[in-house]
């Protein structure tokens, strides 16, 4: 300990002139306040210039000292001065590193403190809203010092081992990407950030300890020193990455019973359901499963459903998107239970599955394409879409795809263009165009595609040409849906009470159903026997309403689900009359309920 302090004291003494230079530079922020543009804002100028100057010099000095404190002595063959003295390798490194870091921190403080004292308020606003910026600056100085030492050792040794260092660096970065990738795909941003921080801290610890090994085994020869550094550095980093990889592998290994379900989706018919939830032991990591309720069999799929997941009407075909590329999101590929389809699209593309599940339509940039799902074969394509616009698409018939195209201009007039691609004729043409005021999901369509409701403008329009058929006067609209038969269901708020308002095909009001016990409801589905399903997510209550009579037939408290689907496709929120619905209870567990007048839900075996 004593020798460490002696070495640190010697180093600090040698670099004492830096303090004088920094004391001189601490006047620069004060000089900056004399500039013509700074008049009246001297506090802010002091804070900004003082902060930036302190950071730049503090970081710069950390890099310079980290790169020279040991390595310069090694390169100039002066390290033997220490190794001929009765001092250990750890004492040399700790003493020199402590001095280097303290000098860097002191230089940062010498520049920062005078301006901070004079302009306290401005400093507090600019930098010290909390202590985090200071902690980050100090940590950065430490990291830069260690990193600079390592880089400098590697470079200045001029050893052929440099190539191996380069290779290992690439492998390490690639490994980090591979480790973090499943977390990012599972939307575990908090967990990914936590993991990256942990890896970062561990690597900094390795960088801090490696020079001890370097000096203890490489001693005064820079090439041997470099080799010794490598022998410690890379195996240690490999261990850190193995631990991180093992932790991630453990975290993401979840079963359907481990998750708190946040999203469910199911087809019109059939027993399949797609379930996404947060894994209980893995912070915000989400896992997705396809579960067959008839057999209890579950299959893990590598994507959350909000990247796109659809069922065919009979529930036998299920497609979803999975990211392509190891290190970045290069594209999304459609997958089925049988595997990858080879149909790849950009992350901004939209897709829709035909009702029989045999075809898929994709808007990808300017192109609209239709593929055969089983083979990936391109059946038809058409150009002429605006790549910067948003597209809602659906199969009008198995051979005709309709596209609604509009700009993302909220609450401002924007053109709505309607296109149709004829698969047999392999031709695309614009069938209509009109202006409208976009809000959220712009368009919902009747089951035959003949009519559509345009939200924002609140009009019933021709589904093909966009021409107005009827206008609906309404205010405080929060949810809208054109029903399968062409009627329109809107949710509005009169004061604090949400109302479901039903309009006939010509826009005449027919029913008004109030939901006084909840603060909001949304339309989430429609059954083949003409019932509407509404859900209040804040109150976690699901309602079944007969839109013809205006009667609330069922109220399921504590149940959320089915979920809404943001698509123009009229079939996607339509369910069989006898369909058993899957929802989520207040504990995040799956429950099932039926539209048969019994206001209860039973837990699903899978999620106990």
């Amino acid at each position: 300990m004593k020798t460490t302090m002696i070495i640190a004291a010697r180093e600090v003494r040698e670099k004492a002139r830096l303090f004088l230079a920094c004391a001189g530079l601490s006047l620069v922020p004060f000089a900056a306040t004399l500039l013509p543009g700074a008049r009246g804002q001297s506090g802010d100028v002091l804070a900004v210039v003082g902060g930036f100057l302190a950071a730049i010099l503090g970081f710069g000095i950390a890099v310079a000292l980290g790169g020279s404190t040991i390595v310069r002595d090694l390169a100039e063959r002066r390290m033997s001065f220490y190794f001929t003295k009765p001092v250990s390798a750890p004492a040399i490194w700790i003493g020199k590193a402590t001095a280097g870091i303290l000098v860097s921190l002191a230089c940062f403080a010498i520049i920062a403190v005078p301006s901070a004292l004079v302009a306290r308020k401005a400093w507090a606003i600019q930098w010290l809203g909390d202590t985090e910026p200071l902690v980050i600056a100090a940590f950065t100085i430490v990291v830069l010092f260690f990193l600079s030492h390592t880089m400098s050792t590697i470079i200045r040794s001029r050893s052929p081992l440099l190539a191996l260092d380069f290779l290992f660096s690439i492998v390490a970065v690639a490994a980090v990407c591979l480790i973090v990738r499943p977390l990012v795909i599972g939307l575990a941003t908090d967990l990914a950030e936590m993991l990256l921080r942990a890896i970062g801290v561990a690597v900094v610890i390795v960088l801090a300890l490696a020079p001890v090994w370097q000096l203890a085994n490489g001693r005064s020869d820079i090439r041997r020193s470099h080799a010794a550094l490598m022998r410690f550095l890379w195996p240690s980093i490999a261990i850190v990455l193995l631990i991180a990889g093992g932790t991630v592998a453990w975290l993401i290994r979840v079963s359907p019973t481990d998750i708190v379900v946040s999203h469910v989706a199911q087809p019109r018919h059939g027993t399949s359901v797609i379930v996404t939830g947060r894994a209980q032991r893995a912070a915000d990591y989400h896992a997705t499963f396809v579960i067959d309720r008839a057999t209890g069999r579950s299959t893990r799929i590598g994507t959350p459903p909000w990247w796109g997941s659809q069922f065919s009407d009979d529930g036998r075909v299920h497609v979803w998107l999975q990211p392509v590329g190891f290190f970045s999101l290069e594209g999304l590929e459609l997958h089925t239970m049988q595997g990858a389809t080879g149909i790849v699209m950009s992350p901004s593309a939209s897709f829709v599955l035909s009702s029989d599940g045999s075809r898929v339509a994709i808007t990808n940039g300017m192109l609209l394409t239709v593929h055969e799902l089983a083979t990936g074969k391109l059946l038809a394509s058409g150009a002429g879409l605006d790549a910067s616009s948003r597209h809602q698409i659906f199969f009008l018939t198995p051979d005709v795809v309709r596209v609604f195209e509009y700009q993302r201009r909220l609450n401002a007039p924007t053109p709505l263009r309607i296109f149709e691609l004829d698969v047999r004729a392999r031709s695309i043409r614009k069938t209509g165009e009109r202006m409208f005021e976009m809000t959220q999901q712009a368009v919902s369509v009747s089951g035959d595609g003949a009519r559509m409701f345009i939200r924002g403008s609140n009009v019933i329009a021709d589904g093909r040409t966009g021409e107005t058929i009827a206008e609906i006067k309404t205010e405080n609209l929060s949810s809208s849906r054109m029903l399968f038969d062409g009627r329109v269901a809107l949710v509005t708020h009169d004061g604090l009470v949400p109302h479901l308002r039903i309009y006939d095909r010509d826009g005449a009001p027919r029913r008004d159903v109030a939901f006084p016990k909840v603060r909001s409801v949304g339309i989430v589905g429609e059954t083949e026997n003409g019932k509407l399903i509404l859900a209040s997510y804040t109150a976690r209550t699901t309602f079944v309403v007969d839109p013809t009579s205006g009667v609330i037939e069922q109220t399921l408290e504590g149940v959320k689900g089915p979920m809404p689907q943001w698509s123009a496709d009229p079939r996607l929120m339509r369910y069989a009359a006898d369909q058993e619905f899957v929802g989520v209870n207040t504990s995040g567990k799956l429950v099932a309920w039926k539209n048969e007048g019994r206001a209860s839900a039973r837990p699903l075996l899978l999620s106990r």
Partner: protein
Amino acid sequence: MTAIAVEGVTVRYGRRTAVDGVSLNVPTGAVYALLGRNGAGKSSLVRALLGHLAPELGKVTLFGEDVWRHRARLMQRVGVVAEDSDAPTEMRVRDLGWFSSELYSNWSQRAFDMRIERFGIASASRFGDLSKGQKKQVSLALALATSPELLVLDDPTLGLDVVARKSLFEEVIADMADRGITVFITTHDLGAIESIADHVGVLKDGKLVLDEPLEALRERFRRIRFAGTATELAMNAASSRAWGSGTEAVVTNFADDAFENLRARTSAEASTLTLEEIFIAVAGEERK
């Protein structure tokens, strides 16, 4: 007791072997001169001896302890004057004294100050501003002020003028006389070392080709001039050449009986060799 024991030490830099299986022992109180041409491996052996590099094979012990493992502790007993003056250039001479005084338990500030004064060096001078000779003098003053039991001098006179060389050796000799320390020295200054060395080792291409007391060497190595041919010489000749109508040879195993025989036949004359002449005879052959 043995101060230095080198056992089968091999040092390699990549594929190049700098020191090849060298073994030697230096008894306590001895002055061991390690000689060799440039690139023979002297500095590498010294670095291994000081625990600056781990030999690929073999082991070095100082005072019976493995120097690689116990370097820090052993350096309390060892003073070193390196081939290249390695003190930080920004440090003042007095600061170097302060730094060493904090590290060595046997530090003698008085001895350091006296030597610095005797050398005529201002203690406020920066080490980097000193001449080459002064740097060596400061290094020697630092090394001797630690009251070392072993003094390692790696080519201490390299680049020094005659006066500086003499001054440096006088200091060493004085300290040896005062305290009887062990000295391990590598040098090209064979004339100066001849008067103080009692053991000599010669490294050639990394191998220790000669290792014995200087007196024994002087006994063994002789120059013989005789009227005859080299084939008549019943001793090992390191070198031979024509000398007038006769021959001059340097023999490596001089024996009185054999010489008397030769003198009886050829009027031979024998003379002793200087260390430099012995070194040339042993290591002087040009490398191929």
